[in-house]
């Protein structure tokens, strides 16, 4: 029997705790993740620029990697970022801001292989997120294939989430 707990969640958010999120919040979270990836790439580029400047200031010029390399590096950073985020804490920074968490079919955060595959799918087929609005269970293509869910979770720690009291 579950002990009575004091819920730290705001009252208005309690009915949604543990339910699969809709398209809007997931898109906002994805956008934030995109910003994060962009910042990381920018940071890496900036670090490289600084390094080159320190190594050879006289012959310094801003490196030009080309579109393909940029896209590929963004893809890699995104996959790594999402994999680590979902595997370690079940959410990325975008999920932290929007109060979302990725869980598997057992209600727990995905394991490393699952997180990696999901990150690959999400990065390679980003349009698959639009399936959320059509799905009766609010699932994206990656969720449907991997039996994962993105749920509202306003609790900061990775606590086992339970269905809200009816």
């Amino acid at each position, binding site marked *: 029997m579950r002990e*009575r707990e*004091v819920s730290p969640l705001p009252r208005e958010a309690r009915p949604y705790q*543990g339910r699969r*999120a*809709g*398209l809007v919040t997931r898109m906002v979270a994805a956008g934030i993740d995109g910003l994060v990836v962009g910042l990381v790439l920018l940071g890496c580029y900036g670090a490289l620029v600084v390094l080159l400047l320190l190594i050879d200031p006289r012959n310094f010029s801003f490196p030009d990697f080309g579109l393909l390399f940029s896209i590929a590096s963004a893809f890699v950073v995104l996959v790594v970022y999402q994999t680590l985020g979902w595997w370690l804490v079940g959410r990325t920074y975008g999920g932290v801001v929007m109060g979302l968490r990725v869980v598997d079919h057992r209600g727990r955060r995905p394991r490393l292989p699952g997180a990696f595959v999901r990150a690959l799918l999400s990065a390679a087929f980003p349009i698959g997120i639009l399936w959320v609005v059509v799905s009766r269970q609010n699932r994206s293509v990656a969720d449907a294939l991997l039996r994962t869910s993105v749920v509202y979770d306003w609790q900061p720690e990775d606590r086992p*989430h339970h269905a809200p009291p009816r």
Partner: protein
Amino acid sequence: MGGTTEGDDVTRPGPDIRPSDVAVAVSAGLIDTIATAGGRARTLLGPLARAVLRPPLLPASLWPETPLAALTRSGEARREALAAEVEARLDAVVPVVVDEVLRRTDLTDLVLRHVDLDRVVSTVDVDAVVERVDLPAVVQRVDVDQVVKRVDLDAVAARLDVDAVAARLDVDAVLDRVDLTAVVLRRVDLNAIVEEVLARLDLVALAAEVMDGVDLPEIIRESTGSMASDTVRGVRMQGIAADEALSRAVDRLLLRRGDRTTQAPEHQREPKRADSSR
């Protein structure tokens, strides 16, 4: 009747012959004979006696009956005087004789042996007797304490149907007369009761319920929250609202009935392991 007296002769002529009884029988027989003879003689000689005592040719003053009548009246008066004298003497003698007789006789034994007391008592009107008895005065003379001391109260109590007595008891009336508050304060160890109540109380659950009721987390958030956290909260709630609105719109567009099943699987506890499963 019957019974022997001390004066009886021990040496009788035979076992069934008593001289005293013979004498009484003979005397009685003679008296009966004389009385019978007298009655017959009166019947036979009556007319002759009247003729002799009241000769028809003589005046009444010369009748022989006249002096005889005078003598009869004189004799009657003397008899009456004698009877009165005898009665007076008997009045004096009989009590003394009776007293002496009773002194020598166990009257109680006599009554017990010869008197049917049940029949005598059955004729007594006990109600009338009781009515005349001053019961309060009788009770007043009874030492109730001594009586009660001899009563086995335990045996009486054992036969008592306490449930029936209690059923008839008006508990409310009893309680109305009792100052329960004073009784409790005087006789009840309130500290022990409070400790027992606290021991049985799930204070954690109670505190959790109170905190949930007053929404303590919200109070803490309001008191410690920053603008950024309020902004994030607002953005989240607006995002949720937008999700709901979009879902309803699409469902209406697709002519779906019923709500979406958006409840995710609940967390399944896994057995604790020494190494991390990460």
